[in-house]
């Protein structure tokens, strides 16, 4: 298991290096660090001097290594607009996005597991057909349309739920601004989380269903029936555990992709997270902040996937032994 974990972590590091290289290439080609520092009204001579001082005339690789060294220490450059370190800006915006992703994932897990399994065990019932039909419709509606529909129904027409912002938040540990601890904050979370989960939820239901159906056809499940086990035991212990393995792998990737989907959701709901920050930074040509966002999201993505792989290793006994050797 240890060797297995080490291998995965090494892979993660390599992926991070590639992401940072891409990020740096963007910054190198499109960004203007001098402007970021001093603004437009500086003479060309002064600019050249600053460029030299900042090492901007050094070869690409030298600058990249410098960028990497700084990034490892949490320094992702200076945001031109906020006049503050980019990493600081991101850390302040991150909780909003992460809470949104967390709630959306919670919705996905809590709904897709029972629905997927039910429709695998009883594929012919009306409810299963409804779930399957609904999931096709669900996948094909774009996130922003779902969001607008939700706002129209629950905010405009019924006036039940707030349509924008995070509502009342509470500061935790001095830096984590959470909306999970107030009723108002939770109410604000409902619609954005549903909108964000709307794409992945149908995919997960279908994935769990198809995996589960395949497992239910397997010899070991047939054998479990032949042993006279109770249906619950066959479904939840024998079949579900094996269904979980491929679902974990795919789930990890999807979770990462969801972070990217937050850009849309946050924009529609004016959610003050990293996603809307990224859109703003693009509009303001705030290259440092853009790149910092990419690197940070890449980092979260890799982190989640590595953790998922390690969890997979814990669930799957075959991997455990492979690691032991």
């Amino acid at each position, binding site marked *: 298991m240890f060797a297995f974990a080490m291998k995965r972590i090494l892979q993660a590091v390599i992926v991070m290096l590639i992401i940072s290289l891409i990020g740096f290439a963007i910054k190198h080609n499109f960004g203007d660090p001098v402007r970021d520092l001093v603004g437009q009204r500086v003479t060309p001579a002064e600019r050249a001097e600053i460029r030299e001082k900042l090492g901007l005339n050094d070869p690409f690789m030298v600058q990249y290594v410098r960028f990497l060294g700084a990034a490892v220490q949490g320094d992702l450059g200076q945001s031109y607009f906020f006049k503050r370190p980019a990493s600081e800006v991101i850390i302040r915006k991150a909780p909003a996005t992460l809470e949104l992703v967390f709630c959306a994932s919670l919705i996905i897990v809590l709904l897709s597991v029972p629905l997927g399994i039910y429709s695998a065990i009883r594929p012919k019932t009306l409810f299963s057909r409804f779930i399957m039909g609904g999931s096709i419709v669900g996948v094909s509606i774009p996130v922003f349309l779902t969001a607008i529909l939700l706002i129209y129904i629950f905010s405009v027409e019924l006036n039940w739920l707030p349509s924008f912002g995070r509502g009342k938040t509470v500061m935790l540990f001095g830096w984590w601004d959470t909306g999970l601890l107030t009723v108002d904050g939770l109410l604000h979370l409902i619609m954005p989380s549903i909108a964000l989960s709307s794409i992945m939820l149908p995919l997960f239901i279908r994935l769990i269903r198809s995996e589960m159906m395949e497992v239910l*056809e*397997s*010899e*070991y*499940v*047939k*054998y*479990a*029936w*032949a*042993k*006279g*086990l*109770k*249906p619950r*035991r066959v479904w939840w*212990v*024998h079949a579900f*555990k*094996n269904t979980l*393995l491929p679902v974990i792998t795919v789930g990890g990737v999807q979770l990462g992709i969801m972070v990217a989907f937050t850009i849309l959701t946050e924009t529609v709901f004016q959610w003050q997270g990293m996603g809307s920050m990224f859109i703003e930074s693009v509009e303001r040509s705030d290259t440092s902040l853009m790149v910092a966002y990419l690197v940070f999201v890449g980092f979260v993505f890799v982190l989640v996937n590595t953790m998922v792989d390690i969890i997979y290793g814990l*669930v*799957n*006994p*075959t991997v455990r*032994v492979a690691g032991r050797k």
Partner: protein
Amino acid sequence: MEPLIQIKNLRVDFALRSGTVRALRDVTLTINKGERLGIVGESGAGKSVLGFSIINLISKPGRITGGQIIFKGEDIAKYSLEKMRTIRGDRISMIFQDPMMTLNPVLTIGTQMKETIHAHRNVSNREAEAICLEKLRKVYIPSPERRLTQYPHEFSGGMRQRIVIAISLLTSPSLIIADEPTTALDVTIQAEIMDLLLELCETENMGLILITHDLAVVSEVTQRIAVLYAGKVVEIGPTRQIIDTPQHPYTQGLIKALPQMAGGKRRLNQIPGMMPSLRDMPSGCPFQPRCTERIDKCIHEIPLLTPVEGGGQVACFVRQGGM
């Protein structure tokens, strides 16, 4: 001899989109207490379907559409799922063909053994464990205590089949149905597993239905043999009689296909022609299109099993005197 299970006119159909496959057609046979019965026949004859239909575990869309399976005076073919569950793995155990696929890869051997006991007996975890260890010793698994915490992939094929056999012993069943239990194994350990099965059936006084392609194996292990052809029993009788003086032309073909019984382990498909499709059967005797002794009656009427000399039964007009 006291009958353990009486199968009467059993029919199993697979309703497929392309038509109904009649996998078993009026199968009638009896297995007595403690008796070892072999079921032979070529691929697709319905051997596995017959084995699984006894515990009503035919894969979809297969269904018992007629007949009875009498066990302890009750027709278990009509049992509800929950009632059937109390028989499966308790009174009647199964051994599957491929031990690599039978055990659940993510559960330990101990879990997979104990759950079987808990499904049928009200015992503590400790008592269940004691039963597991006892049965693992019976199948000669060394240091069974350690084995309980291991996963299937930590065992070889032969060891896994021993574990499956141990699982089938857990509830001291009165019948074991073994569907080609050694086919998937290495040739060198096939005999070992077969001997073990035979030994356990004798010491525990369990009945055995042994489904196999291998006439050499059935002749060593079983007391009676039923020959299945296209979903019908065409001949049944004492093992020696079937091997030495087969009556039905199909059985004769099977025996002839074995060069010498001693070393012969050939597959049973060397009779000219093919088994008819179960979707549209020929009229009359299912074997008549391939039969060299066919008479007119064979094409028009379906022969029934009729007793012959020596205690067997055969479904063949020619052997019944041609009338």
